[in-house]
């Protein structure tokens, strides 16, 4: 039951993008088309899940037994950076158009605060291995959900008659704000 709570909480209630305002950069940058938004979401989900696994292993098997907790930040950065490199190589190999579409936002996952937040939060909340993985996977899905919703709205916005001063970044940020407001309705459902 607790695992389900963590999972649902990570997707809907404490959605990384719309509740904590983490990972806004790819959320705004790659949300023009549903296709590339979905790919970005899946890439982030993959990195998040593997980060949760690897950082838990490093944290619990290497750092904590030796009292090296203060190395958490450095070692998590190492994990995330290597994973993103791996994902980048993989995407470049299997789909060059996707690689082009994601552009600079793909390597930017490295410095994505959402993933770093995940690793630190899992350590801070003292999650067990399974909990960490569920938390990571759920958070990734939450990010994917948010970015796809955003892309859907933005695709519709292309056709909309947006007033001149609101075109571009302005209307995108307003949409993000309204979405955050909508997701606020979930808050407090699970502590």
């Amino acid at each position, binding site marked *: 039951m607790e695992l389900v709570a963590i999972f649902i909480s990570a997707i809907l209630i404490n959605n990384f993008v719309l509740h904590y305002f983490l990972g806004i950069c790819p959320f705004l940058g790659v949300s023009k088309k549903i296709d590339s938004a979905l790919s970005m979401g899946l890439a982030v989900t993959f990195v998040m899940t593997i980060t949760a696994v690897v950082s838990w292993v490093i944290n619990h098997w290497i750092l904590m037994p030796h009292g090296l907790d203060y190395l958490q930040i450095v070692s998590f950065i190492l994990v995330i950076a290597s994973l993103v490199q791996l994902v980048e190589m*993989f995407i470049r190999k299997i789909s060059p158009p996707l690689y082009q579409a994601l552009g600079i936002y793909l390597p930017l996952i490295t410095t994505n605060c959402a993933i770093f937040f995940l690793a630190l939060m899992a350590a801070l909340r003292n999650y067990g291995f399974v909990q960490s993985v569920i938390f990571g996977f759920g958070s990734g899905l939450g990010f994917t959900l948010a970015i796809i919703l955003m892309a859907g709205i933005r695709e519709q916005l292309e056709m909309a008659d947006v007033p001149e001063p609101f075109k571009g970044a302005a209307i995108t940020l307003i949409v993000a704000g309204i979405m955050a407001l909508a997701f606020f309705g979930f808050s407090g459902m699970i502590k």
Partner: protein
Amino acid sequence: MDLLLPLITMGTLGFLFSLGLVFAYKKLRVYEDPKIEKVAELLPQTNCGACGYAGCRAFAEAVVKGETTPNSCPVGDEESVKQIAETLGITAAEVIKKMARLHCRGTHEAAKDRGTYFGISTCDAAHLIGGNKQCSYGCLHFGDCARACPFDAIYMSEEGLPVVIEDKCTACGKCVEACSRNLFELHPTSQEVIVFCRSLDRGAVSKKVCKNSCIACGICSRACPEAIVIENNLAIITDYKKIDPEKIPDIEKCPTEAIGRLKKEDEG
């Protein structure tokens, strides 16, 4: 000892991860011809798509593969084509500089209005209801071409017609597509004589609706029969190369100025 443990830990972790990446790189490496990068740098980077490829990068890949030739990029100038050819070790074909030319002289003054148009101010919209001018072949004056031009090479003159600035025009062909009435064509810049009308109406009709329309009188085709013919009430230049420069003054005797060389006000 307090210092050694974290050092060893981080060092080992770093080493393991880099080892993993090296291994992954060997498996997942994508070989890319370094020439593609060089050619892409020499291209204009406008990504206009005029060459028929998705963008400058795709064009560079095609050139390196030999699918197309460096001078197929209509935007690039002679210098860049030469450099690309040198990079690839092939000889460059000659580049003929082209630009977009408007085949209409129906200014606000010359072409009569059909009524007052209150609709959406784009050519496409006006064209749907038959246009705001009595002439159903000529320019609609709403500047869809100027908005479509990615190089700011077209502006709307006070007389109402689009003016192409030769220095800025790259012959990408966006205006040719944008014009609802297909009044633009790409011509070599060296080519002087052009028919400035597309009206297929009979002379009597077209003269009534526009002062500068071709009335198919045949003065030009008689002056230069090997290159100009009258077809469907319109003068058509069949072969631009056959126009004898000495005959140009005779061709320009056109009573409605619907054929001839570009005038000062036509050029930007």
